[in-house]
């Protein structure tokens, strides 16, 4: 892999190293806690769901060098599972989310077993094709209700205690879910496992020759990424009380790629920034007559041509003053 994301893991550690960085993280957390008093909670929750989705996706592309073009399959399917278990079977939201995460993880296992047999471009095409299969299944299976989707999902009581129909309660729940997912990704990236993934991204044959069974590492990363994408999708279904076909389309897979690319592949915070920007942009565009896909497509093209480090990647590059290596 020669994507320009090499040093950012290392730089991510640096971000946590100095005390000003801790202050920044603290300030960020404080902002997240206070935000719903200024901005619409629903908007913020949407950002958080997509931020988690993008972080999960970034775990693969940014830290293992695998471009999945089918992550909507996990996000969308998990949304269906959460919506169905909560609405039709009357499960508690936490149980629905757990089921959603587990199902997404299992799907990730199946996808992974098939897709890790090829690399690079082929990997992207295979994941895209498999996710399209999931799209057709979602279109045809009765429990997804086709074009209508699963509507009117009750938010319910979290752990039987917290009433999620209260916007602030729902918001802090989503924030907690996001932070837990983010922390897990952070831990993974900085663990020995994450180091091996990085080694595979840099030079897979060398990792193989060092005795690592790289396929297993890639598979575990894939399953983890799919599960977290599922957690994000399930949460989104509870928040919006809706699971629909939109979330399993290839356009959705493309959107999460864009969020990550825009924010900075291989940076921990990049996908969060990217998700925030894309969601903001889309809600802004919705009130104009500009065609959303065209704008999104243009951002894609510009990012790929002249802004491959993404926002956070570029910032880190400038701040640390590291030249090309």
């Amino acid at each position: 892999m020669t994507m320009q994301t090499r040093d950012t893991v290392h730089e991510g550690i640096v971000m946590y190293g100095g005390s000003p960085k801790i202050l920044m993280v603290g300030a960020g957390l404080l902002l997240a806690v206070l935000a719903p008093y200024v901005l619409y909670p629903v908007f913020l929750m949407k950002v958080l769901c997509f931020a988690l989705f993008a972080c999960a996706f970034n775990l693969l592309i940014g830290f293992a060098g695998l471009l999945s073009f089918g992550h909507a399959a996990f996000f969308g399917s998990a949304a269906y599972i959460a919506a169905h278990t909560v609405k039709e079977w009357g499960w508690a939201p936490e149980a629905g989310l757990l089921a959603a995460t587990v199902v997404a993880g299992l799907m990730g296992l199946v996808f992974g077993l098939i897709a890790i047999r090829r690399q690079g471009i082929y990997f992207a095409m295979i994941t895209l094709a498999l996710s399209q299969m999931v799209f057709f299944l979602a279109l045809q299976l009765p429990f997804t209700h086709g074009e209508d989707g699963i509507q009117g999902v009750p938010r319910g009581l979290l752990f039987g205690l917290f009433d999620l129909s209260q916007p602030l309660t729902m918001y802090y729940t989503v924030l907690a879910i996001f932070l837990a997912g983010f922390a897990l990704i952070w831990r993974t990236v900085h663990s020995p496992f994450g180091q091996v993934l990085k080694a595979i991204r840099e030079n897979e044959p060398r990792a193989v020759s060092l005795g690592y069974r790289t396929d297993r590492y890639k598979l575990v990363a894939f399953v983890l990424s799919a599960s977290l994408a599922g957690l994000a999708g399930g949460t989104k279904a509870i928040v919006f009380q809706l699971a629909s076909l939109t979330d399993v389309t290839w356009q959705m897979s493309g959107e999460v790629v864009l969020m990550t690319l825009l924010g900075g592949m291989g940076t921990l915070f990049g996908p969060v920034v990217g998700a925030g920007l894309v969601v903001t942009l889309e809600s802004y565009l919705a009130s104009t007559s500009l065609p959303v896909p065209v704008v999104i497509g243009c951002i894609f093209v510009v990012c790929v041509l002249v802004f491959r480090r993404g926002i956070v990647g570029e910032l880190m590059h400038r701040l640390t003053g590291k030249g090309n290596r």
Partner: protein
Amino acid sequence: MSQLLGIPPQALFGQLLLGLINGSFYALLSLGLAVIFGMLNVVNMAHGALYMVGAFVAWLLLSYAGVGYWGALVLAPLVVGLIGLVLERTMLRRLYKVDHLYGLLLTFGLALIFEGAFRHWYGVSGQPYPIPDLLKGGTNLGFMYLPTYRGWVVAASLLVCLGTWFAIERTKLGAYLRAATENPTLVQAFGINVPVMVSLTYGFGVALAGLAGVLAAPIYQVSPLMGSNLIIVVFAVVVIGGMGSILGAIVTGLGLGLLEGLTKVVYPEASNIVVFVIMAVVLMMKPAGLFGRER
């Protein structure tokens, strides 16, 4: 499998013909993808969008310039090919030195732009495109009724596919192309302008998609979304066939189209996903694809 006996041959052959037509489009599109991939190492995600553009160019020519089907059959691929040349010269070219995934991402963005723009202008509903007079009607073959236009599509696609195969495998120009696919630097060191060849290859590959779009216009309606779902199936076809061989792309495309048609008869619910299932099975058994070489 006992259902198979209960199916009237008319329905069976009708679905197989539909499958063959889909297969013709798979073959044309995967051929273009394979040619582009071989030379540029780019998976052209914009291929489906450019197929749609080809169909739209035909429709626009007819609606606004009075140019009919036969004119469009020549002009639309030229227009799409020119668009391809511009895209390669201005954008794709900058990405050859970075990871190949960026080529995929760029062309994905381009696909969004093309589809979004046509959707913005023409909405999602399809525009009808008439079958040219010469190809109206049909023939009763005894066991089935063959609409002339559909027969023409299969024949024309096959002809173009085989012509492309011949040009690549049996001509001097094709030898340059094959050589440049293997070792562009050396071919350049023989005095051949490889960057121009690369541009022309991309232009030719997408022109094939444009041609497929014109052929498809009278069968499917001309709609902004006609390419996006088709192209994902074509990606699966390409993974199944492997990118190694031109003939492989053609054979796999036609074969999978037929198989899809057959599935529609036997178990209609699975017809949308059968190609993807086959892809998974092939990958488990032969990761490089049926005709592919590990690379």
